[in-house]
């Protein structure tokens, strides 16, 4: 068995999600190859070669693969997939965008967002917003899988010495073009990788009040997240949303401030190790999953918390 892992990368570096995906591949067992597709990705390939447990790195460096357009990257993966038993990608927006296209071209079903590996063909994944866990078996010749990164501990980014091999294939479907992007700037840790996450909901009242959470987060070295209500109300940008339709996080500590705890929000954070809820409504559903609950006005509790930690 040989497993192909599609690397997630940004700004010329391997993204942490790749390390969790390699960990899932290691649980399946077999040789692990990593594909780095993009433009000017030589540096990414070099750092991918250092990931512990990786046997080979394939580099597809071509203008057509810049910005990971699925119309161009999927045919590349289909061409490469034939030599592999499994194709894995992290369940990031890129992974979710590209892999189902690959699966359909290979005429196999995909398994989305696995959280555990039971055997080489059997995996567990959450359904119904995490309210049920399905065990799914695949009979496909090539198993196409996205990996929920919070389900697997990252492998070491250093220590490996894989061979780097260039892939000549250039697929340009000519059906799509990158126009532009608008990336949210943040100096805080990345939400999905942070050890501590502080999230605000509708109870924050307005966007300006999030400054209380930023101050607390900076003191804790935490990332700041939000509920859908806070995003829809325009308090914060949507890439901060935690939940079924936003990001899935599983930090050591999750502090939910002014968040009621709807099913869709819980789907994104209930695997956190310790959950703290600060809410003035003692009936709020968030208290049913919180390890520590504080019934209090967040505008008093959060500044006080910031002082004490």
């Amino acid at each position: 068995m040989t497993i192909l892992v599609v690397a997630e990368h940004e700004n010329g570096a391997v993204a942490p999600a790749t390390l969790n995906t390699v960990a899932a591949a290691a649980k399946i067992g077999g040789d692990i190859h990593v594909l780095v597709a993009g433009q000017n990705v030589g540096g990414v390939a070099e750092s991918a070669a250092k990931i512990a447990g990786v046997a080979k790195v394939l580099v597809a460096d071509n203008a057509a693969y810049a910005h990971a357009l699925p119309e161009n990257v999927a045919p590349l993966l289909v061409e490469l997939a034939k030599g592999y038993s499994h194709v894995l990608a992290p369940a990031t927006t890129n992974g979710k965008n590209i892999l189902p296209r690959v699966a359909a071209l290979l005429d196999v079903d995909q398994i989305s967002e696995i959280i555990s590996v039971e055997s080489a063909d059997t995996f567990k994944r959450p359904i119904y917003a995490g309210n049920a866990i399905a065990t799914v078996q695949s009979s496909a010749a090539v198993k196409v899988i996205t990996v929920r990164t919070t389900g697997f501990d990252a492998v070491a980014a250093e220590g490996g010495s894989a061979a780097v091999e260039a892939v000549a294939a250039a697929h340009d479907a000519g059906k799509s073009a990158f126009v532009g992007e608008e990336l949210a700037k943040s100096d805080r840790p990345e939400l999905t990788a942070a050890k501590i996450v502080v999230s605000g909901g509708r109870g924050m009242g307005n966007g300006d009040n999030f400054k209380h959470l930023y101050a607390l987060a900076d003191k804790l070295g935490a990332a700041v997240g939000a509920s859908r209500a806070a995003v829809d109300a325009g308090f914060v940008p949507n890439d901060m949303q935690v939940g079924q339709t936003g990001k899935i996080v599983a930090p050591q500590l999750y502090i939910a401030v002014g968040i009621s705890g709807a099913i869709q929000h819980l789907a994104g954070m209930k695997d956190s190790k310790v959950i703290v809820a600060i809410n003035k409504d003692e009936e709020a559903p968030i208290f049913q999953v919180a390890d520590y609950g504080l019934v209090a006005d967040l505008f008093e509790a959060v500044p006080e918390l910031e002082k004490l930690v």
Partner: protein
Amino acid sequence: MKVLVAVKRVVDYNVKVRVKADNSGVDLANVKMSMNPFCEIAVEEAVRLKEKGVASEIVVVAIGPTAAQEQLRTALALGADRAILVEAADELNSLAVAKALKAVVDKEQPQLVILGKQAIDSDNNQTGQMLAALTGYAQGTFASKVEVAGDKVNVTREIDGGLQTVALSLPAIVTTDLRLNEPRYASLPNIMKAKKKPLETVTPDALGVSLASTNKTLKVEAPAARSAGIKVKSVAELVEKLKNEAKVI
């Protein structure tokens, strides 16, 4: 241009589902069913395109049990012109649904196909991408803005770090994210009118589609329950617990 919208009948998003005692699945007997929320956004976007004069006809399609007619009628009440039900009893995997949709696309020849980004029951997030693969069309997934300009559609997508805009050649596939629009409610007169709109029923066999799958669900379990937490009385007590008991700060 013609717009095709796919909708799915799913358990209502407010229902807290229960896993069956025999671990064969989730208990859906006597549970409220609705149109998948992302599909509502897809229908709304199609109706807005029609209101802008971009779309000339909206065809809505569902693949599922006879009861999925209810969701198709809802879409008709929201402004779709006609509906197609591909009747299939079993719970289908995404590839089978994508193949059935491909057959409908071949027949209807829409310029734009709009789907939700994921169904809230299976949480797969696959069908739109698979349909794009099978038809060979470009895909604009997780769309928060859709602008048709000539023979192209510009789609702004919600990606992990922010927003990305791509230009796709038509025909194309778009899947909706939550912030694309705010779906409207169906008015009573429109619900009455929707009953008279055409709804065609076909079988997968008639479309020449195989519903076979390479995935098999072995069992469905309830997630591990969290142990009950405690309520603290003050911020000082909270900090003390986090430092000394949970040891997370």
